[in-house]
């Protein structure tokens, strides 16, 4: 209420401890009016803890009189009372030492631009999830995978011998047998499960030589740029696993369907801006389009991306994880389209670029097929890209090391329960797409 009251309180009670004083003051200032007094906390732990705190000393403002030379004690090399403090110019090392490097402010950097760029990276957690990703990529979301894709793995020639038993062994190896401890950790078992399933699918190479025209690449860096309306967008980041192939994937939907997407209206989520949660940078390189590989790479076409939910650095919720999958698939497709057809926006690509993606957390799988029909993304009208998404498919219900017992009844037995073979069929069909 009254600062004078507070000051008198403080003067009258020099030995009252700070916390009690604050409690008293907080009663006087119920809405945090004593904020300025609270901000000066007693941090030092040596010496007397309960004395009154001196008010902050305001430094004397130096007076600048132009034309007047101040007499400093700089030449005398020691302090002399009455003379001014010498002011020296800033010293810079004449050699470069990385330990003592301070970055210049953004405005002085050579790549600084006035217009900000919105960057989507590995750690971005988009608020609106797949809707936001669909708006940013100008894509029409179609729930469920294309049916002709699923029929690929129904063909008995394309199936692995003893498929169910081997997949169940792969799951058990990943979930139970891979460690000397009782159970492996989530990031370990999700990684092992994905690698085991890929190893199983790759054993079909003996019957299907077209699978031999692919290779797995770890940790490549992706960069792609596009504009949407007035905003500039970039996608940058390092992917987990990428399956690249010598041959491009065939297009999933025909020309008719593609031309029909022109009538589709993109879903907006007013009042939330579509650029929410994207990193805004003013220092960026324009027109970066890099698929992660240089020169004449023998496997130029992206086939499938594999995403794992990393639990340590950034934990993404399922919707945001799916958005990340969409964005990175789109980024790979766009980078390759730019390389093939140039960076000028094209209304309709002659051959749409198709890229697939699979995301998992060790039990739940998300399947995605993205078809890039157009690189003209500035307007909201015209031909759209297409996106088939099948989300939250469980490969098995439970994989328990010890049974779940409630009220002396076994609710869930130990071991693998609730295995669903159709999920692996979808995985296999995505793997075989383009080869079978």
């Amino acid at each position, binding site marked *: 209420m009254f600062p004078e009251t507070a000051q008198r309180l403080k003067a009258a009670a020099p030995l009252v401890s700070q916390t009690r004083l604050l409690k008293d003051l907080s009663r006087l200032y119920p809405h945090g009016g004593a904020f300025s007094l609270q901000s000066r906390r007693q941090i030092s732990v040596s010496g007397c803890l309960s004395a009154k705190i001196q008010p902050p000393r305001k430094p004397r403002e130096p007076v600048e009189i132009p034309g007047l030379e101040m007499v400093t004690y700089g030449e005398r090399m020691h302090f002399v009372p009455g003379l001014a403090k010498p002011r020296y110019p800033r010293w810079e090392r004449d050699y470069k030492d990385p330990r003592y490097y301070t970055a210049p402010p953004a405005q002085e950097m050579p790549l600084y631009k006035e217009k900000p760029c919105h960057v989507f990276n590995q750690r971005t957690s988009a608020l609106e999830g797949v809707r936001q990703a669909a708006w940013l990529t100008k894509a029409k979301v179609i729930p469920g995978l294309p049916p002709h894709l699923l029929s690929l793995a129904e063909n008995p020639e394309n199936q692995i011998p003893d498929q169910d038993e081997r997949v169940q062994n792969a799951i058990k190896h990943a979930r139970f047998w891979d460690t000397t401890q009782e159970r492996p950790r989530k990031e370990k078992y999700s990684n092992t499960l994905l690698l085991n399933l890929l*190893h199983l699918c790759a054993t079909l190479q003996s019957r299907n030589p077209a699978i031999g025209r692919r290779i797995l*690449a770890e940790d490549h860096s992706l960069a792609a740029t596009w504009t949407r309306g007035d905003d500039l967008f970039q996608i940058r980041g390092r992917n987990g696993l990428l399956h690249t192939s010598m041959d491009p994937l065939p297009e999933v939907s025909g020309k008719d369907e593609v031309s029909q997407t022109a009538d589709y209206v993109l879903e907006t989520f007013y009042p939330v801006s579509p650029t929410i949660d994207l990193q805004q940078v003013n220092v960026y390189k324009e027109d970066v389009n890099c698929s992660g590989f240089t020169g004449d790479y023998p496997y130029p076409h992206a086939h499938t991306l594999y995403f794992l939910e990393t639990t340590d650095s950034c934990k993404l919720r399922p919707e945001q994880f799916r958005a990340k999958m969409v964005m990175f698939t789109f980024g790979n497709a766009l980078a390759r389209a730019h390389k093939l057809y140039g960076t000028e926006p094209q209304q309709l690509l002659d051959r749409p670029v198709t890229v697939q993606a699979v995301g998992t957390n060790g039990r739940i799988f998300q399947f995605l097929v993205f078809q890039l029909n157009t690189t003209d993304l500035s307007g909201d009208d015209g031909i759209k890209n297409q996106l088939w998404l099948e989300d939250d498919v469980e490969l098995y219900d439970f994989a328990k090391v010890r049974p779940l017992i409630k009220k002396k009844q076994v609710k869930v037995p130990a071991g693998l329960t609730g295995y669903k073979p159709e999920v692996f069929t979808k995985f296999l069909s995505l793997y075989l797409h383009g080869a079978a």
Partner: protein
Amino acid sequence: MKIELYTSAARSPIWTKLHLRTRPALLAALILFLPEGGAVVRSCWFVHQRIGSRRKRHTANMAARTRLPLLFPKNLPPFRHKKLVHTETAVKEPAYPPIVASLTAKSKSARLRQVEEQVKKICASPVQEKLSLITRIQRKKFVVYPQTFSRNADRWYQHFTKTAYIPGLPEKFTPAPVEPVAEGSSPSPAALTAVPGIGDDAFADLRSLVTRVILQEQWHMKKRKPFLYRHQEQTFGPLLRSLVTELTHNLGKYNPLLLLSSLDISPQVNFYWRRGQRIIPKGHRRRHLEPTRFQIDDQPLCQIRITQQLPQFTPLEASYAAEVPEITYAPNLMPLFRRQYDNNIFTGAKLPDPACYGHTQFHLVPDRYHRDRMARMQQSDQVEVFLRANALASLFAWTGAQAMYQGFWNHEDVTRPFVSQAVITDGHFFSFFCYQLNTVALSVETDANNPRKNLLWGTESLRLYDSVQDGEVVGLNDDVLKLLVQFLMNQP
């Protein structure tokens, strides 16, 4: 004549004294007459006989006793036997329990008996319980690191694991010498297709695949600058993993084992064993004998596990003649350090996994032991030693764990040899090793009469390719590639 006869009824420890005033001949008859005459004879300690007439009854040596021979002839006058027809009964052999040392007494023999009982218990239990019984008790043990900075580590490890090193590879992998060309026949292209089961075209495909993999990692892919001392892991780790996966998948059509195999990335391989003993120098257990325990905890870059066992390279008996270096110093002088923690025996997957046998392991030489760094520290001679020690320890641990998963252990030695392979590389130089485990019985009590030795074959390091320049792999060595393919093609 007075005879004292100590007798005892069948199975009774009570001795009764019979005083008989008879003559020896009559005594013999009496003995035969008695229903348990035979038993009496056998169980008589001694027969007192006071010899002499009445004159000598109270002489000084009255207490002197003579002993009649215990063994009465069994075939005494045969006809006398016939008189006992009516009273003849079947002579039963008494069955007494074996005399063994006590189980609970505070004595050395009781301790030995306890150990015996434990061994019998382990032999009689299923495999999972065997493993847990063997590794149950934690004690201080030497931790053997496969990748070690110690000098001449391979000789020490050979001694710890009873392994003999044979330079070169077994006959399976050494190509047969090309016969001299005779009668104008053109030199067969056998030199090219030295890999059995793969044609020229297929080999050329594999060659181009390997080229593409190397180029992908070293040339085409944009990578960030590697961290300090993690150059090998971040540059050649992905290259080797891609190489192994691509070759395994490609060779699946020639080697059906690989189709059913399991490929592990950075698995754990552990093994625990005992070898040798020492006298405890100090403490409340001073002067006792203590077995020396060892533990290997290894993490290869990747490994291939299969469902069937690989065939042996040489028969068991061939290892009897091999030489294992003997080191008389204590292990801690190597230097080797002791710790106490969980004893693990692990092949890379737990017991229920169907792929319980090992095929090939791949190891990456880390920056710390890279040959350039060894050259800087003037230890270039230790480069090969390091590779051998690494292969020895890793493969011994893997094959030993495989044998234990099948139920063989210290006191139940392997009935068939366990075989595995390893490739150790630093990205440019490749070394190939084959290991045959002939014995797991390495502890003091089981090693005394054990002529079997384990065998390690190995090559020197061979260059796969010189360098990558302008999008081309320069100097790809076909022989090394052939060896690699042969290793992966190994099947029963």
